[in-house]
Each structure stands twice: as C-alpha cells, then as structure tokens.
C-alpha cells in the first residue's frame, strides 16, 4: 500500500506535471488577483462585456483548434494556422468596402468575402498538403499576403460600416444576452460536435494523434489535413462579421491583436484538457479567460505595454509547456 503511494505521489507532484499545469496555475492566480483588485470584474455587466469582447477571438480559435487537432500539437511541425486572423481581416475589408464604398447588397458582399476565405483555405491546403511546407511558415506567408491584399482593397484606410445586419450583431440583445455571444455559442456547439462527436472528428483526431497509425488504418490523412485548413478559413470568414461589428467597420492592423490572443487562447486551452491536448472547448474557454485577463488588467489600470508583455510571457509559458508535454508523451 505504502509502495503504491510512493509511486503515485511523485507522478502527481513531479516537476514535469507541475510544468505542464503551470499555465493553468498562473492563470488561476492572475484571475484571483484581478478578482480581488478589480471587484467589478465579477459583475454581470462586466461578464457580459468579457463575453462580447471575446467573440472574435473565440471564433478564430475554433479554426485554429481544428487545425491543431488534425495536424497534432507539436508547435513547430504540427498543425497550426497563423492566417486565420488575416482571413478574418480580408473578409471584413471586402465586406466593408462592398457595403460602404460600392453600396453592394449584403448577399453579394458576403459572396465575395466567402470567395476570399475559400481562396485562403485552398492556398493553405495546397502549401501544406501538396507542396509539403511546414504549416507555421506556409500560413505565416499566406497571412502576410492576405494582409497585403487587404491593404490594397481598403487602400490601407478605415471604412465605416452602418449596415443594419452589422449593427444587429453589434448592438442587439436576446433575453439580455448580446446577439453576437449567442451566434458565437451556436458556432462553438457546431464545431465541438463536429470535431469531438462525429466520425469525421474522430478521424481528424486520429490523424493529429499519429499520422502513420491513421494511414495504416486506412484514413485519408492528407485529405483530412487539407479539410482542417479549409475549416479554419471558414472560421476566419465567420469571425469577420464579428470583427466588423465590434469595430463598426474595418480598421487596418486589427489582425495583430487577434493573432496574439488566438495563439495564447488555443494553447492555453490545452491546459484544461486532462491529456494536455488542444480541444475546441478548451480553446473557447481559453479565449474567454484571455479576454477576462485583458479587461481585468485595464480595470486596475495596468499599462497597456505591460499587458502586452504579460501576454507575450504567457504565450511563451503555454507553448513551452505544450512542447514539454509533447516531448514527455513521446
């Protein structure tokens, strides 16, 4: 009996276990500190605000989580798509340009934005699956290209949008809950169901777990990885409506913050999973917590540059912890 204890205790409290739980511990400590320093952080109105502000990050995280599930969570060679925020920004730019500058009807603006998103999805899939580029580099390149095209489309200028559809997403409340939060919740449920509850999702996880094993069991791994990039572009497309609504228009440069929060939230989300793997629901929870952290820091008057520094450090800890867990598992 004592022998069993002496084996399990060090496993639970070993340096490795502590290191992989580090992001979660740091986050909980930070949130407790913020909850004490900024008492209004737990007000229903502030929680509503946190949920509302987190929506664009939540939706891009759905895409990144899907890609990581399919490609494996090795930060360098596994699945990653850094271009999702750029896809959101290019779609938002097209929507804003079409609705405001050209007076196009909503359906044609949406159709054009969808074409851009499909192009991004196909481009990433070709670069990674057909050409065999590392997802990190491929999607970084496509992200830079998309931001460049956005600047051409918008002439690098802000475009205001006051279309009723965008205003609805921005301002409407259903039973006291912002409509954006409800719509995003539907997307979250759909992604969770697709990735974690369907046969397709199981195959996706199998590919991410071990591509060789998946291939041996007859799963078309390349096709599934390509589909994950396509789904990620779809998430970028969906996020564009929330980006547009949040800013009442498209603003150049909004992809930078979104990228930072997306990576932080998705890999932080892995810390919530018992096996320390990236999951859709974990990424969503991560996105809400990252926003709560931003709102909390601002509420207690922390300098915005320190907030950036803290977020950067957290990304480092989260990614290092993910890499460490991956190495320990292998």
């Amino acid at each position, binding site marked *: 009996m004592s022998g069993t204890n002496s084996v399990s205790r060090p496993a639970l409290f070993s340096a490795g276990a502590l290191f992989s739980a580090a992001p979660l511990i740091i986050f909980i400590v930070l949130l407790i500190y913020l909850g004490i320093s900024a008492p*209004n952080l737990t*007000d229903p*109105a*502030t929680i509503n*605000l946190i949920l*509302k*502000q987190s929506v664009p990050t939540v939706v891009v995280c759905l895409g990144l989580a899907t890609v990581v599930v399919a490609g494996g969570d090795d930060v360098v060679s596994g699945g990653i798509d850094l271009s999702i925020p750029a896809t959101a920004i290019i779609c938002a730019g097209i929507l804003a340009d079409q609705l405001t500058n050209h007076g196009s009807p909503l359906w044609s603006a949406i159709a054009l934005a969808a074409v851009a998103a499909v192009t991004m999805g196909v481009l990433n899939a070709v670069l990674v699956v057909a050409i065999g580029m590392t997802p990190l580099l491929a999607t970084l390149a496509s992200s830079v290209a998309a931001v460049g095209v956005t*600047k051409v489309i918008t*002439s*690098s*200028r*802000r475009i*205001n949008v006051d279309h009723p559809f965008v205003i609805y997403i*921005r*301002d409407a409340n259903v039973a006291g809950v912002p409509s954006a939060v409800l719509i995003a919740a539907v997307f979250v449920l759909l992604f969770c169901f697709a990735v974690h509850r369907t046969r397709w999702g199981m195959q996706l996880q199998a590919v991410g777990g071990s591509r060789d094993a998946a291939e041996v069991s007859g799963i078309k791994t390349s096709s599934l990885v390509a589909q994950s990039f396509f789904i990620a572009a779809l998430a970028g497309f969906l996020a564009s409506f929330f980006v547009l609504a*949040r*800013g*009442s*228009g498209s*603003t*150049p*440069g*909004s992809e*930078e*913050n979104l990228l930072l929060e997306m990576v932080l939230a998705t890999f932080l989300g892995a810390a919530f999973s018992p096996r320390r793997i990236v999951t859709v629901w974990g990424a969503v929870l991560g996105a809400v917590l990252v926003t709560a952290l931003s*709102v909390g820091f*601002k*509420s207690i*008057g922390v*300098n*915005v*540059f320190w*907030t*950036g520094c803290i977020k950067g450090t957290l990304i480092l800890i989260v990614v290092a912890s993910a890499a460490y867990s991956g190495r320990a598992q292998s």
Partner: protein
Amino acid sequence: MRKHRTLIKSAFSTALGVGAAVLLSGAAQAADLSLKGKKIGVAVVGTQHFWDREAFNGALDMVKELGGEPVPVDGGRDNQVHADNHDILLSNKVDAVISILGDGAVEPKFEALKGAGIPVFTVDHLSPHGVNNTTSDNYYMGTTIGRYMADAIGGKGKVAVFNAFEGALRICGIRAGLWKYVLQDYPGIEIIQPELAEEFANAPEDARKKTLDLLNQYPEGTLDAIHVGCWDQPAIGVVQALEEAGRTDVKVTALDGGPDTLEIMAEDGSPFVANVAQQPRLIGQTAAMNAARHFAGESLLPQTFVDVRPVNGPEEAKAVYEELGYGTL
C-alpha cells in the same frame, strides 16, 4: 544690430509675460473648478507618440489637480482596443469620460456612455454624442501649412502627400482638406496621384520605406515637396529617406510640431521647412477643466479651440521649441 537684439529680447519677455499671465489665469480658473469625488475615465488611443502622451498626461494631471480620481486606459495605438476600452470605463461606472483621438469605432461606445448618463469630453474627435471637443484650430493649421508649403516651393511643382486618414478622422479631413483648398489657388502645383497612405502604428519607418520607393519613381528634379497631411511622425522617416538618398532638395512639411520634429527642423539645411505646432498638454488639461465646468453647471460650446504656433523655417522652430517649454536649441 544691438538695437535689433534688444527688440527681440523685449519681444520675448513680453511674450513670456503674456504666457505666464495666461497660465496664471488658467491656474486661478482651475482653482475655482473641482472634480472632487468624481471618477474620470481618461481613454487615449496610444501613448507611443509625443502628442498622444502629452494630451493624456495633461488630462490625467489636471483631473488629479482638480481633486478627481482618474481611471486611465490606453489603446496601445490600436483604434479597436481604444474603442473597447470605453466599455471597460462604462462597466467601471465612471462619472465622466475624457476620450483622446480614435476613429469611427468609438462612436457606438460614446452613444452607450451617453445613454448611461456618463458625459463624454472628446479631444480631437468631434462627436454628436460628446458634450464638448477640445482641439487645436485645425482650420488655421490646414490653411497655414498650405501657404507655407506653396511658398517653400515657389508656388509650383510636384508634391506627394501622406494622407491615409482624410476620410477616416475628421481632424485629418479638415487639415488635409484645407491644405488642398489653399493649393487650388496655385495651379502650378500638382498633387501626385495616388496619394500615399501611412501606417500610423509604425509611422516613421513605414514612411521612410515609402519615401525611398517614391524617390526611385520620381528622380531628381521631378519631385519638389512631400507633405504629411495630418501629423508629423511620418515626416521623421521622410527626412531620413531624403538624407539617405541625398535628395534634401525636396521640401518637407507636416503638422503637430512636437520637440522631436522641431529639433529636426532646427538643423542647418534641414529639408523639413514648415510645421504648425500644437499644445497637446494644454489640450488635455483643457478637456479635464471642461469636464469640471460641466459638473459646475456651466454650459459649454461644442468645441474649445486651443492656440497653435505656426513654424516657418529653422529660426522659428528654435523659438517655438523654447516658447513651448521643450528647452533650448
């Protein structure tokens, strides 16, 4: 010569006297005003640039001086983050908000604050939802820089303009629009199309690269001036590019006149020939005082204009640098 120097000296002491009197009367006025017991949100789009930082600190210091408790939020030069920060001020239940700069994304936030009974005092951002906007005399700035630039190139030539924000920010619309209005009377001046678009977040470096590209496109003798339509941080990069390319014959004009750009203007043979200097700290202070006036029951005009100082050439750059309290060049 000595008489000349005495005249300049006496002019300076008079100017200093008037300045001191204005400051003192400001302080006296401030003494009657109070923000005691009030929580005042102060939101700024960013603090990387001198202007933004000075206006922000001016507002914060004046809120404290008047007995109020400032709640500062900084957008880190991201207009979206700046807009979202107003939601945080709303949930913090502040008594008033001083909002410095920002684009159209802040409008629905102002509307929400107004709906919650929180008065908004804007700086350099005229809004239908604000009580009052404190700003420089942008109309004077736009026309003056138009005249100075036209004079600097002898009333004719090709001019490139960095003008990304004319349609997005009203202050830029006024400044760039009136600069163009003045140039209508100089048919010999041609504005190169398409206009250049600066990336405000990374202004000097971005402007340096774009100017080097422009200089390749327009060889010596085919470009006479580069104007920055709304501010002057990009002009730092423009001057760097002109010096790198040995093209300091191209004149540079811009608006804002902080210490960094006035120093460049004051250098011998600087291509940066004209500017209009603002008083950002005074603007921030005035916005805070306007909030106090509002709480004291005074009715405010929609806009409060703060004086600017036109700067034409290196000597005026040195004089304005000293006058605005940045030191001696």
